[in-house]
């Protein structure tokens, strides 16, 4: 099993979710994070202009079986892309075990 951590633009979330659905990935968790990266945003507050590299992003955590990794990554890669600096990153992290709380069962079946 692998955990796929994707950091994407918020405005791309709906498209990414649809793309995931299309490849039968229905289960995941997400939350909002602040991303520090290449992209910068200009701000102005009471006459003080400032630019910030802190951008609101959405963090998706998706645990999938090994044979689903590529298809999931590719779905995100294409749906989350705008081509502009700041599109985000995807990381793949090993997962040793998974449990479904409702039933107590463990292993790859819990991800369906």
């Amino acid at each position, binding site marked *: 099993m692998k955990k796929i951590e994707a950091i994407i633009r*918020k*405005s791309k*979330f*709906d498209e990414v979710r649809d793309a995931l659905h299309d490849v039968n990935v229905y289960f995941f968790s997400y939350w*909002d994070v602040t991303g520090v990266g290449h992209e910068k*945003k*200009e*701000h*102005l*507050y009471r006459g003080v*202009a400032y630019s910030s590299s802190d951008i*609101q992003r959405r963090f998706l955590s998706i645990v999938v079986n090994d044979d689903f990794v590529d298809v999931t990554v590719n779905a995100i890669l294409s749906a989350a892309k705008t081509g502009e600096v700041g599109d985000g990153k995807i990381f793949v992290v090993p997962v040793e075990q998974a449990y479904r709380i409702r039933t107590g069962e463990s292993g790859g079946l819990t991800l369906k």
Partner: protein
Amino acid sequence: MDTTLTLTVNNLWMMISTALVFFMHLGFSFLEIGLTRQKNTINILFKNFFIISMGLVLYAFVGFNLMYPASFWNGILPDYFVGLFGLESPMGETGLDLSYNEGYTYWTDFLFQGMFAATAATIVSGAIAERAKLGSFFTFSMLYVGIVYPLIGSWKWGGGFLDEWGFYDFAGSTLVHSVGGWAALLYIAKLGARIGKFSKEGKPRAIPGHNIPFAAAGVLILWLGWFGFNGGSVLSADPGLTSLVLTTTSLAAAAGGLAATGFVHLYYKNFDLTMFMNGILGGLVSITAGADQMSVMEAVLVGGIGGVIVVLAVALLDRLKLDDPVGAVAVHLGTGIWGTLAVGIFGNMASWDQFLVQLIGVGLIGLMSVGSSWIFLTVIQKIWGLRVDRAEELDGLDQAEHGGMTAYADFRMNQH
């Protein structure tokens, strides 16, 4: 009666009413930001601040004289329209003898009317929220508040032809609310719906407002403001009339809210606070045309029916794929028309003839509002466009037009 004192007392009530109508702008602001998404909050507040400020200044230099002309040219266009603009100051020798009728002074009159004028534009502002270009909206609202609103107002309140025909609109169900509502309707039709409001199959989707407590506070503030809006429209502190008007106004509001809620509950088995809120506003707009003509029971009826109309109108707009985030068209146009017609159905003036006059008034004013809006919007669309870019809309208008100022800097938000 002691005329100086009479003037003083009447004027006092009018000034208080003016203050209350001014305060409605906080109510509108709260309502509008509460029912929309946080990413457009600064933009909406900016619009409201602009409208109240520009509205007052504009009304001082153009609108007031246009609306209350000394006389009419061919009965439709006030002759000031082809004459002089600008607020004259009928100052006496001391520079301060400003009273000009028994009810109130020149200045009170101006300020009270000026607050009304700004209201009409604010109605539009709510409907077009979250996607309209700021500059285009400003242009539109300046034209509309500067010219159309006072022109229409002059037909009735300025002593024009509708007044002569016997059209009745006590505090402006039509002259203020429908005039705003028609423009809102046309504007959202031209603008199109917000991204995501309708699914690909055309089914309406919910875009929940981000701060319902603000919206609720807005409604209560508006209700309070209506004490001045209707109460001040008596144009004197006449104890019987003013207190009757406050009573009918409050009961219509209460009945509107209860009726809307009950009606929604029948369908959805659910207590829908936002519909309660819109129902109250519907009750208030409904009673505005005849607040001084209704008994308690009639006020409850007029308001209650208004509440149901709002619910139906919201559903109708959804079906027509018109997107009005705050329900401005349903409230101000839907029940504005209803309230005006109700004067011919309920209350002291009820009669078939009156109903017809009301209908004609509603129709002519509707034509004028729709026509002028259409012209303004078409021209503005040609020149600057009405709507922001797709990316700007997704990002939120606060980012693009307001230097990325965020309404709630310390809060962690969901964006959608």
